[in-house]
């Protein structure tokens, strides 16, 4: 009964928003405390009318989790396997919050059972938008490499949009100010140095440009393996690279995404150990000068505005200390 009622209700709220008529809400038998207002936001699929302060939110885009938490929004459904193992323990252990599965195997029934008024989708779940639309309206405000101004700018757009939906414009603004400040600090601290972006996965060091190349967007750092035919669309960006090739490129710095630490329940060979064991690196600048920046262990699954703010802060402090 619940299941049947909710989607209709969501449609009702949307309609009400369009007409700006409270009677519309009453007609669809909405409880009085349901918000009647709505706001038009720019999504990755064009402008969309979204109810303000929706009560039941299914959060699927992991880049939004930390922001939602900061806004005091507790989702009704979440892809729990994508939660970092630290920092979201309350959500992870709360049985009231249903597990939406992962983007490889989403549990659409659980999402439906949670009866959300709004689904924050996109990013890893972008492929499921059509199916999710049948459950509730889906907003996709995820940052994206394809967006005109790049991923990092996308983080700001996302935060502004979430601020508008949850009526937390001030909080959103301060998050964005924090990111801008960190970018500014990192941009000041760096000056065209060369860098290798590494992704350590299954104990192997690969090129991580496809994943964290975004960090360089607002900075002047030069990726040693950046080239026209190796843009992030190339399938070969992450297919493998020999340690000797990295040693030959001899970058000044290395920035490491520790994928193993973020995801593996079992085998965790911390990236530090893998890098330290790499004999081929011993004569490189980044090893001899100890110029290696390890991103937060959970960066691979956080990736939101807070994660990028932290990353830019650690870049700034590492370069300032060098």
């Amino acid at each position, binding site marked *: 009964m619940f299941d049947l009622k909710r989607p209709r209700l969501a449609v009702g709220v949307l309609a009400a928003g369009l007409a700006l008529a409270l009677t519309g809400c009453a007609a669809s038998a909405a409880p009085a405390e349901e918000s009647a207002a709505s706001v038009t936001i720019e999504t990755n699929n064009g402008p969309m009318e979204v109810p303000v302060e929706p009560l039941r939110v299914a959060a699927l885009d992991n880049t939004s989790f930390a922001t939602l938490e900061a806004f005091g929004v507790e989702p009704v459904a979440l892809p729990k396997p994508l939660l970092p193992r630290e920092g979201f323990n309350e959500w992870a252990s709360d049985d009231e919050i249903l597990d939406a599965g992962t983007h490889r195997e989403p549990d659409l029934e659980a999402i439906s059972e949670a009866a959300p008024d709004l689904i924050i989708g996109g990013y890893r779940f972008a492929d499921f938008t059509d199916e999710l639309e049948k459950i509730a309206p889906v907003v996709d405000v995820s940052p994206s490499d394809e967006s005109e101004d790049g991923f990092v700018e996308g983080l700001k757009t996302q935060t502004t949009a979430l601020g508008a939906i949850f009526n937390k414009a001030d909080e959103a603004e301060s998050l964005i100010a924090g990111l801008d400040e960190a970018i500014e600090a990192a941009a000041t601290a760096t000056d065209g140095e060369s860098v290798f972006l590494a992704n350590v996965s299954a104990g*192997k*060091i690969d090129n991580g440009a496809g994943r964290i190349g975004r960090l360089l967007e607002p900075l002047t750092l030069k990726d040693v393996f950046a080239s026209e035919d190796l843009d992030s669309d190339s399938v070969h960006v992450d297919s493998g*690279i020999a340690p000797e090739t990295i040693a*030959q490129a001899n970058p000044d710095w290395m920035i490491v995404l520790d994928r193993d630490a973020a995801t593996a329940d079992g085998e965790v060979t911390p990236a530090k150990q893998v890098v330290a064991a790499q004999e081929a690196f011993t004569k490189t600048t980044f090893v001899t000068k100890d110029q290696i920046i390890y991103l937060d262990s959970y960066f691979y699954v956080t990736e939101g505005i807070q994660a990028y703010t932290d990353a830019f802060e650690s870049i700034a402090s590492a370069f300032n200390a060098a």
Partner: protein
Amino acid sequence: MPSRTIIQTTSVVVVIALVAASLFVGGYNISLGNLFTDPAAAEMFLISRVPRTLALIFAALAMSISGVIMQLITQNRFVEPTTAGTSQWAGLGLLVMLIVFPEAPPMLRMVAATAFAFAGTAVFLAVLRRVAVRSSIIVPLVGIMLGAVVGAITTYLAGTFNLLQAMAAWRSGGFSGIVRGFYEPLWIVAIVAVVAFIVANRFTVVGLGRDLATNVGLNYDKVVLLGVTMVALSTGVSTVVVGFIPFLGLIVPNIVSMVRGDDMRSNLPWVAMIGVGLLLACDLIGRTIVAPMEIPASVVLGALGAAVFIVLVLKQRRTVSA
């Protein structure tokens, strides 16, 4: 036959050239000239090039010798570790180890992979014994089916325990990360290869079938057991160190048999050599065409092997009534 002599001489020269190429092609600037003048180049040669070339040689030996032994045991030309499920079982063993004992040292992982490979090969032989129709196509189909089932179980388990990407990285069979300190277990394969040379004649007799082999005084079961052990050991170790290497064990023994006939003892050096040459060539293609990135040798080999497999099947149909 003069043409055979020409073919054999040419292949010796080509394989030697490939070994040289493997030692001197790569991301780090090493040439015959600076090898003796630049200590950094000499060091990188020992850290990266020699181990990688040795790893390629050992892995090729492991797969091609395993292919010969399995083909004689099953009296079928299309059987080898990846078409009989042996590799997939080794993979399952590795994954089970990652799940139940994630901190296990590499040696223990290899023991697990080898034990699973052994059990899997035994299962394959047992199933085969109960299959009434043992035509040249049915036998590998049974193996491929078993392998697919085991592979599916592995994928399911990996998905459940969040190890999918670790499994994918490992499955893709790359040599890009091979440096000193990573390939050493493959020396076990060298020992297996020596044993194979010593007992080659017995496998040739096994290839005549159980009745004939027993008639000429061979302890059939004992030799089969030895063969399965050798196959499991080489497959288990090479699977853990470099991942799946498809088709090598299938293509190489068949090509050699086409040229030289079916005496395993005199064929074995050729099988070993052609196998090494083929894998070296695939790895060289993989490391040059998208340089500085790399394509795993197994991917190149998979594309090549699939084509040769089809040719062999069609050829077989013409000469032997399946």
